[in-house]
């Protein structure tokens, strides 16, 4: 399965301005979160991207991604009706093609030679159905993520076949339904914030959309898992949810500590620790 399209959602009430925040990259370059995402996406071979935005934010976004404007389509989500609805807004753009789905409020830092997006696309290239990037996550973080029940696929390290998934499960449910063999106790496979999805997911979203109330994404992913072979792959890298308190700071620290600014930032942190009091 070759992936040529990507969709980024950035229309949520809290997400509207996050992609416009600027950060310093590991190589010392200052750019917006949206630019970080697009650089990584296009570097991985994607040819066109749709960004789902809130009405009235296109100008801001256009200036934030000025370098890639020719390959970017902006799609307005007129009313905020949930994450699934934001994705559904891009259905004309994706058509019947498989596509990469990313979130505008997540940043990634790869530990491998390839970027996080590239790692996912490599797995997807061997698959015929949806593939979600996942990462073993401690149960205390369950309130933030969708979580999958899966079993390892023989012979491929870090690849799982998904049987079931639950959005933000309690640890009680997770322990009963989402334990994955091979993970440390109290850890679950949680979504990493990037997926490769196929047309049936869009079809299911379309069928589920009533126009009333929020349309979540996870039930449609779960439906896809029932209908076709749904894979999950572990990504060697870090994700930063910049929507969380201190999320942006963490992302910046992660970038800085893995790049040229490491010594400078560590020095500044030590100095701050020494002089500040709670």
């Amino acid at each position: 399965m070759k992936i040529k399209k990507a969709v980024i959602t950035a229309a949520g009430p809290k997400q509207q301005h996050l992609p416009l925040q600027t950060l310093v990259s590991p190589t010392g370059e200052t750019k917006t979160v949206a630019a970080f995402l697009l650089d990584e996406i296009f570097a991985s071979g994607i040819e066109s991207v749709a960004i789902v935005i809130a009405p009235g934010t296109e100008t801001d976004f256009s200036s934030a991604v000025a370098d890639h404007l020719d390959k970017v389509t902006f799609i307005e989500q007129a009313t905020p009706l949930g994450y699934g609805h934001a994705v559904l807004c891009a259905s004309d753009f994706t058509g019947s093609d498989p596509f990469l789905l990313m979130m505008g409020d997540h940043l990634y830092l790869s530990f491998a030679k390839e970027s996080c997006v590239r790692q996912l696309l490599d797995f997807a290239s061997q698959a015929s159905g949806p593939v979600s990037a996942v990462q073993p996550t401690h149960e205390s973080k369950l309130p933030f993520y969708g979580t999958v029940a899966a079993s390892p696929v023989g012979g491929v390290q870090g690849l799982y076949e998904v049987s079931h998934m639950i959005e933000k499960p309690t640890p009680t449910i997770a322990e009963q339904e989402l334990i994955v063999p091979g993970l440390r106790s109290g850890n679950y496979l949680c979504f990493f914030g990037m997926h490769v999805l196929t047309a049936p997911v869009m079809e299911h979203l379309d069928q589920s959309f009533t126009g009333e109330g929020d349309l979540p994404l996870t039930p449609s992913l779960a439906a896809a898992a029932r209908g076709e072979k749904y894979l999950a792959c572990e990504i060697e890298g870090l994700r930063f949810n910049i929507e969380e308190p201190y999320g942006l700071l963490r992302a910046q620290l992660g970038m800085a500590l893995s790049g040229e600014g490491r010594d400078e930032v560590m020095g500044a942190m030590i100095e701050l620790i020494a002089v500040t009091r709670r």
Partner: protein
Amino acid sequence: MLVSLITAEDPVIRDRSLADSCAPLDTDSLLRECSELDAFRRTSENLYHRVRAIFFLQAIYRFHLPGKLPVSATGSIPFEGYEYLLGRHFEEAIDVFLEIQDQDGPSDGICSALASAYHQLAFQTLADQVRKSVRTVRGNQWMFRMGHPADHPLRIRRELLEQDEHRFPILCERTPVRMDLTHSAWSDIFFLGMDFPQGARVVNVSVDLAVHGRDSKPKPPVEAYFRIIDEPVLKLTSIDLKATAVISSLGDVFDFAKDYLGLLKAAVIASGIIPPGIEGSGKSLADLLNRLAGPNRGIEIISSVNDIPKGSRLAVSTNLLAALISACMRATGQTNSLTGELTESERRLVLARAILGEWIGGSGGGWQDSGGVWPGIKLIEGEVAGETDPEHGISRGRLMPKHKVFNQEEIPDSARQALTDSLILVHGGMAQNVGPILEMVTEKYLLRSSAEWKARQEALDLLDQIVKALAGGDIRELGRLTTANFRGPLQTIIPWATNHFTETLITRVSEKFGDDFWGFWMLGGMSGGGMGFIVDPSRKQEALNIIHDIMIQTKRELENALPFAMDPVVYDFGINPHGTFGQIHHGEEALLPPSYYHLALADTLRTPPADLSPTARAELDQFARACRTNSAFSSSVESLFETLIPRIGDQSAGDNSLSKLLTENGFDRRQHEQIRKDLVEGRIGLAQNRLPATTVIKDVAPEDVTDFTKSDATENLALGEQALADGEVGVITLAAGAGSRWTQGAGVCKALHPFVRLAGRHRTFVETHLAKSRKRGQEAGTTIPHIFTTSYLTHQPTRQFLDTVDGYNYPGSLHLSQGRSVGLRMIPTVRDLRFAWEEMPQQVLDEQQQKMRDSVRAALLNWARSTGEASDYTDNLPLQCLHPVGHFYEVPNLLLNGTLANLLEERPQLKTLMLHNIDTLGADVDPALLGHHLASDTGLTFEVITRRLEDRGGGLASIGGRPRLLEGLAMPREEDEFALSYYNSMTTWIDVDRLLELFDLTRPDILARDEGKILAGIRKVASGLPTYITLKEVKKRWGNGQEDVFPVTQFEKLWGDLTTLSGIDSKFIVVPRSRGQQLKDPAQLDAWLRDGSADHIESLCEW
């Protein structure tokens, strides 16, 4: 050979009875078997093999080996082993005892010590396994890993956080209770279900309840409420217990006995809101609540059981726990549904958490007890552990059973209605501890005692028949079957399942309703509490009131003999079709039960209006509106006033009655004040009871005692027989005590307790003692005068009781000797409490129970401090505030109250009195012993027995070369007692004239009833005896069957100390255990029945 009974694959061998296998074995063979079993249990990896081997060992050492030992095998029990037992180091204790056995050979004492150690080890092993399984149930594990608020993975659901005019929504969970229609032959004990899942089966019905005559109609009796509050605290309220607590630290959440809210705390923990893993972390509760519910938010949880009395055997507590857990789990998104019924998987999760909660709270129910969570009528069965279960390879069954809810086709509505139309559900009012019963059941099951094993199979057959009868709506047949179950299997397994109260009720209901009485049905561990009577539906309405009246009448007759916690009640009930059910109320509908506001608003009203938070103001406004518009709140204003301004007056009435009692019973105020002064100043107290530490205490030499277990019993038989025939002997039974251990301080007359069925009927202690005297009298061709000593507590009831039963038609003269001295209990000193709990060896409890006990003790120390150390204990029923002053006084009372004078007038030839305790059932006027006493020409002959582990409280010692009885209270060191071979049975042969001599009295003085002289004599003797300070437990009853136990201080002088006096000579005689052993605790009864003691007693009696 015995190991093969455990390991055999063939059920015929595996289910063979241990007793049958042991019967042909001699001592050496039994010891060899024990050695093999012990080696096996140390190496076996299979839990149930290990546990069965341990139970086998316990049974052999308790029941099979002692009877086969030579009489000379006495031997002492090493203190080191006893200390290990107290510290719950059972393995080490067993090693010490086995070493002594190897060294000195087997003895009765060592057998008792080994039996006790193996018994405790077996239950500890089983309890550990259940605990482990509870923790490893999926869905429970994460709670033990979470140790920091920042890691808390739960969040309160958004719906509960949305305020409407400063009012948070209220989540309400309503849950029925469960009744066990089949009685499962206790197969719902976890240990049984986990070893024998195929045999663990019950039919369990969810029911709504109402107290007949009090409540309008049945409704789910259990209610739990959950809401968010705007303060970062945990607020807990039990409406029924009228208790509320605002908790601001994590430590207090885990302090279960600090208040009456332990169950609510257990629910908060088991539901994962405050997971068990965070205990002891020292973290902040506010931080945790912030994580769960947001900044400055807290949680309020309220429970109500609508005044359903405690002890109903309907698992009210467990279902309340389950309701609270359901509400908390709904609120934190651990169930999909915030409201309505739960799904099957959610119910199972609530069950797992309720089991966890019971373990955390240190209690423990059966696995069917959360049955109210499920709807309607269901079959609950044990389940074989599969490969993916945590129990696999450890136990045959899973911890959690499976539930099959019967549908309309299987049990149609008409059958359900027929059951409702015929069954009368009652609470008989008795308060009983069923813990020992559950232990007995487990032990018997694992030993596969043949009769019990057969009975268990019969109970399983009956279950199938009961389901069939129910499905067909044949309630008459159902009644026949439940009665057959009660009469057959249940009483075969546990004879104590029935009692005199229950039997009387059944007889009377049967007499009243004849053929229209279709059957009896027992609920729970034993009868007397929750029970059912099944009648022809045409007579149900009439029967509701008649059965109530019969129960009240029977209780009135027996309340001095049996422990009742409350007056009996009859319930109206209905089958609940939903199981636990959640509802959410918003805005003006968000109301709590009226009684909640009576409790909670009192504080709010005392707060200046300016200081009230907007939420508190909204709450007041809400309440005020409800009072105006909601009929359920019509009398709320008055009730709130009652809470704000409590009534006075009841207390003074109690005081008056107490003063009256004190005056009537010879209370010595001067002596009381002196004792208080001495206590406060530390001159007397538990530590001061002890002899100086320098006292050298040795065991007696063989020549200090006459061993009647060995000597020729016929030597002085003729002398004794002649004295008996000549009417020279009488019996004194000490019956003044309340039997504190027998009923845990319930304050009933032990003497009148119909404690066991002998010769086909329940017999009281009084009847049994008279039956022995009757028989000895008949054999000697005479009658034996029999005196029962009584006290303020027992005199009137004993008199009335004996009148009712016509003195059991005793042919001889029957006297009551009324006590003439009484003490007033005091609040203990903190020093004495600490001494009792910290200085004296203590039985360490199981982990959670130990935590509970520590917490209770901390609360009791505070109680003693705040109430006033050594102040008078008056906060109870007047009779519970008095205390008898020790059995020494019971003989002087005979002199003082004219009983001895009456006896001497009636029988001038009287020379000897045999005095014994009410619970020494084997004591009778044995002519051989009487002959020995007469031939030895001594003032007092004390009977002693060889010591077993449970025989604590002193013994026969040699001090300075003189043999004397030494009270346990006076032992300078605990270990001294373990060096003593003999235990005091209290049975004493008294030479009347020598005794009078001790008191400087003569027969003419007694006959002249010279009170001044008699009093002077008593004072002289009493002044030579030590005064002991003791702590006794006293129950205070309140509410609907609730009971609290308090330690109180009292003093006593004891009979055995007469052996220290020089004015009278004392000799000691060793008698067989069957004669000298005492029944102190109902938990001893079963072993007493099994080891042949009951048969022996019966052989001494003529009814």
